[in-house]
């Protein structure tokens, strides 16, 4: 199986690794470091991204903003030997994509950064945390290196009743499987009535590997998931993790119909018979659900069916990153928390909960402290079903 790269699937001005023949044509011999030059040279260095890059906002050095990263990648393309010196810049991007949303020239920096990371991996230049993450995923099938049963959150009797064939698969993800089993349980309870099943030996979706440049390793993990999905015969994969969602949707073969939990819930509001709750909540758009895949309305529709929604200061395309993605939470915890704290400043007054639809966002925003509880959208739905 060939990993379908984001850029190929979305197909508009994306970064990609050129074929060897193209490289030879460009430079006469194969280079150590190569990403699609057009995607890099489209950048006019205007600095629009500098004004929105959340990592730069915390760090303050030019190398920590998108323009800086593009410049560093350009320098590598132009022959500067890749070295560990580039890692604090290239490994600290959360791939939140606000730069891509704002770039007047239409550059997609997260794709360029991911392509560059893949090249660095090939050159053997990685961070310790990147390697740790890789080892976890390839040895244990999850990003935490957990050796426990991935389906430990579901009881044995329930497990034995899982249908072997189904139109729908609930892809649980590493976070809900190991860190938020209560989210997994609640999600499964909601989805069970629609005949959903689980993969018997679900593996990490490969998002952490793809985001941090381990494309070859990712292929193997994805292959194992894909074989199981085909065996179950499902036409639709439902996932409640934004990272899993964007990976399944944009990196797995196109045959998969992938749907996020908020979309599924929004489509089945009537059947869910949700009760109205006397609550006011706000909603944090996860970058990989919102900006990367434009799923803005579905979660809002679900929330508004249950309670009052009071929006954050920056929403939808302008939403600010929680700091968790792109390997930054593991690699640069201080920066990651800085982003989360900054995001909490966008929370409006007078809300009971911060709702989001990604367990990584839940985790990072919770770790940043704050007075208002951060919950996953499935918890809100569960409250509305239970009440």
């Amino acid at each position: 199986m060939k990993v379908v790269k984001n850029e190929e699937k979305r197909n508009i001005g994306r970064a990609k690794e050129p074929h060897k023949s193209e490289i030879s044509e460009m430079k006469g011999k194969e280079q150590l470091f190569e990403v699609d030059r057009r995607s890099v040279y489209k950048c006019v260095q205007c600095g629009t991204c500098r004004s929105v890059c959340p990592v730069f906002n915390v760090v303050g050095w030019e190398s920590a903003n998108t323009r800086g990263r593009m410049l560093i990648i350009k320098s590598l393309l132009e022959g500067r030997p890749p070295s560990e010196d580039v890692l604090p810049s290239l490994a600290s991007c959360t791939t939140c994509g606000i730069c891509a949303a704002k770039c007047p020239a239409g550059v997609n920096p997260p794709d360029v950064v991911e392509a560059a990371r893949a090249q660095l991996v090939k050159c053997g230049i990685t961070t310790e945390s990147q390697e740790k993450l890789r080892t976890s995923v390839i040895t244990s099938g999850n990003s935490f290196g957990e050796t426990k049963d991935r389906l430990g959150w579901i009881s044995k009797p329930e497990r034995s009743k899982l249908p072997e064939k189904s139109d729908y698969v609930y892809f649980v993800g590493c976070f809900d499987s190991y860190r938020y089993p209560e989210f997994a349980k609640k999600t499964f309870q909601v989805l069970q009535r629609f005949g959903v099943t689980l993969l018997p030996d679900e593996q990490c979706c490969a998002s952490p590997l793809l985001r941090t440049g381990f494309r070859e390793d990712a292929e193997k993990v994805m292959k194992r998931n894909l074989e199981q999905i085909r065996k179950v015969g499902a036409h639709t994969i439902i996932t409640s993790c934004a990272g899993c969602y964007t990976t399944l949707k944009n990196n797995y073969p196109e045959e998969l119909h992938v749907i996020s939990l908020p979309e599924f819930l929004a489509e089945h509001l009537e059947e869910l018979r949700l009760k109205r709750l006397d609550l006011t909540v706000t909603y944090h758009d996860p970058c990989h659900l919102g900006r990367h895949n434009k799923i803005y309305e579905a979660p809002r529709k679900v929330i508004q069916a249950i309670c009052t929604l009071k929006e954050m200061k920056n929403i939808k395309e302008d939403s600010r990153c929680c700091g968790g993605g792109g390997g930054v939470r593991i690699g640069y915890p201080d920066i990651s928390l800085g982003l989360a704290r900054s995001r909490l400043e966008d929370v409006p007054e007078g809300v009971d909960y911060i709702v989001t639809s990604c367990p990584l966002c839940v985790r990072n925003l919770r770790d940043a402290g704050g007075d208002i509880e951060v919950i996953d959208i499935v918890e809100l739905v569960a409250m509305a079903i239970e009440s």
Partner: protein
Amino acid sequence: MDITAELRKIVGVRLSVSPSELYCYSSDASQVKGMPDYIVRPKSADEVSRIVKLAYENNIPVTARGAGTGLAGGAVPVRGGIVLDMSGMNRILEFDIDNIQVVVEPGIVQDSLNEALKPYGFFFPPNPGSSAMCTIGGMIAYNASGMRCVKYGTTRNYVRDLEVVLADGTIIHTGSKMLKSAAGYDLTQLIIGSEGTLGIVTKASLKVAPLPKTRKLVIASFENAEIAGKAVVKTFSNGIIPSACEILDRVSLQVLKRYDPELVLPSEGDVLLFEVDGTENSAREAAEQIMEVCSPLALSIKLAESQKEMADIWAARKLVGAAVSRLDPSKTRIYVGEDVGVPIKRIPELLRRAQEISEQFNLPAMKYGHIGDGNLHLALFIDVLNKDEWDRLNRAVDLIHRTAIELGGTVSSEHGIGAARAKYMEAQWGPALEVMRAIKKVLDPKGILNPGKLGL
């Protein structure tokens, strides 16, 4: 002397000599490149003073930098040395609304300042296209302006006082909070536009203006840019002063529509955008007058129907310069020859000559800009992987600069000279350039402040 250790004593961890970091500070949005040796991010005038003093004593070049959005290489350390990243000094120190001014550090971003001034009912009018990211310090260094300067003037018209670190580290003030002063040379005006070659600005008192009650936008299209230029001349000669007067030629329109297909813009011709502001009545009256004056020359003319329609057009206009890749992904806009200006009466001629040059060198171009003050942003775009296109570009740009001078204009209206246009200073200024060189010599005898700029 171990300069790294000395700098570290002053700024601690806000010093970097990492090759990747140095590379990120080796350019701005222009084509000028220069590798620094040290990057420091000072937090106070005292730190700046100590750094400059150290540089002075050791003959090390010092280049100040804001957000690095400049288009002439002004913030690029072409002779190496220390780059002072001033963007961390970004506080608003005082809202002195009773004196109609605000005191800021140079690193504050223009839009952030205006956001903060809004609740007071005031704004800082100079508004470059890069207002979302450019810093006030950079605007002062290059006398930046933007779309509304046709009515409100340039940065120069809003600075009351500057705190400046001189080449030997001495800190001076150039003015006061007074509206006027008849006491000696106007050092404030000398520093504005000096591109960091005479001193480093560490604080500024800025005059602010009351926000207008309303703004209206007239959108008119014309058969060609030259006729549009004539409509502008006619509008001004009828005594109407719009708050912005912009031209977007047909290529710019295509780019904008690609950027945002929802934009309400004419589908044919070259377009003029006239903004008028004031009270509801005065703005309406001015808009009607413009429509009356321009109608006989226009293919179409209309008033923007809503504030949103207007805001969307302005937001897109601000980004047009970089958006050309959306029309053709193999082309990149190169910021060279992009800022010429001529006396307003000669605008139609400049537009015609620019078109001819673009055709002569077979280079596609967008023509847009602040036509109301004679400032044309000619955007030439090329395939950056094609050497022949680079050669043609450089020849075309040289001709554009010389044309502007020939028409009695300037090679830079608002982006500055930096290193990119330094070679035209002699042609534009003649013996006056010697006066500038003499001033530089007195204030910076060792030539450590932003060397290699302004043709000095």
